[in-house]
């Protein structure tokens, strides 16, 4: 079993739709939860991070963490063609191991104009 599971998609939605992405994980020691966005043939860039459980909102993006279910989500509201990218979830433990990230496989999203 992989430490972090993420459905690779692909996911295709019309412009303006809500995009819902999620990951599950098995390591209960994870404390930091990140979403990275990767455009085609580019390096990943950090989109959002959440420490422990709860919700975090940043403009059209909302990240949710449910540690009891070992489940994290990313929602994109009013999706735009510029949101077309691969979204990778990433997680790390606290303290001395927090520089090691465990990544999901990434979900490829296409927003159709």
């Amino acid at each position, binding site marked *: 079993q992989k430490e972090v599971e993420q459905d690779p998609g692909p996911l295709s939605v019309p412009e303006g739709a809500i995009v819902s992405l999620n990951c599950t994980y098995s390591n209960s020691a994870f404390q930091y939860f990140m979403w990275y966005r990767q455009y085609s*043939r580019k390096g*990943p860039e*950090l989109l959002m991070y959440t420490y422990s459980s709860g919700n975090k909102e940043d403009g059209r993006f909302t990240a949710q963490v449910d540690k009891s279910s070992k489940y994290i989500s990313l929602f994109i509201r009013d999706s735009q063609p510029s949101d077309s990218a691969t979204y*990778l979830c990433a997680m790390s433990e606290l303290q001395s191991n927090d520089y*090691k990230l465990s990544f999901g496989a990434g979900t490829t999203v296409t927003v159709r104009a």
Partner: protein
Amino acid sequence: NAGVTQTPKFRILKIGQSMTLQCTQDMNHNYMYWYRQDPGMGLKLIYYSVGAGITDKGEVPNGYNVSRSTTEDFPLRLELAAPSQTSVYFCASSSSMSSYEQYFGPGTRLTVT
């Protein structure tokens, strides 16, 4: 501000050849990382470094070597290239204060034939 730079962008190697992938960051980050990304597999950590002169193995270190003589540079050496090393390689860096926020380079696409 260049961030993380990687050279070369593309390379084709024959089986058994060796090469060095270069990585430089200008953000004065202590932590640096090398990942490989295979289709549908997410990012796998090859080696990482928490400072000049300190390196350690990640999840998939076999067939690779690294060195860290300066804060800025973190080259990755491939010895005796094999087809299984065909991948996209990303270098990343982060500060020790927010190591979950990793800054990635543009990647090197390597094909071993």
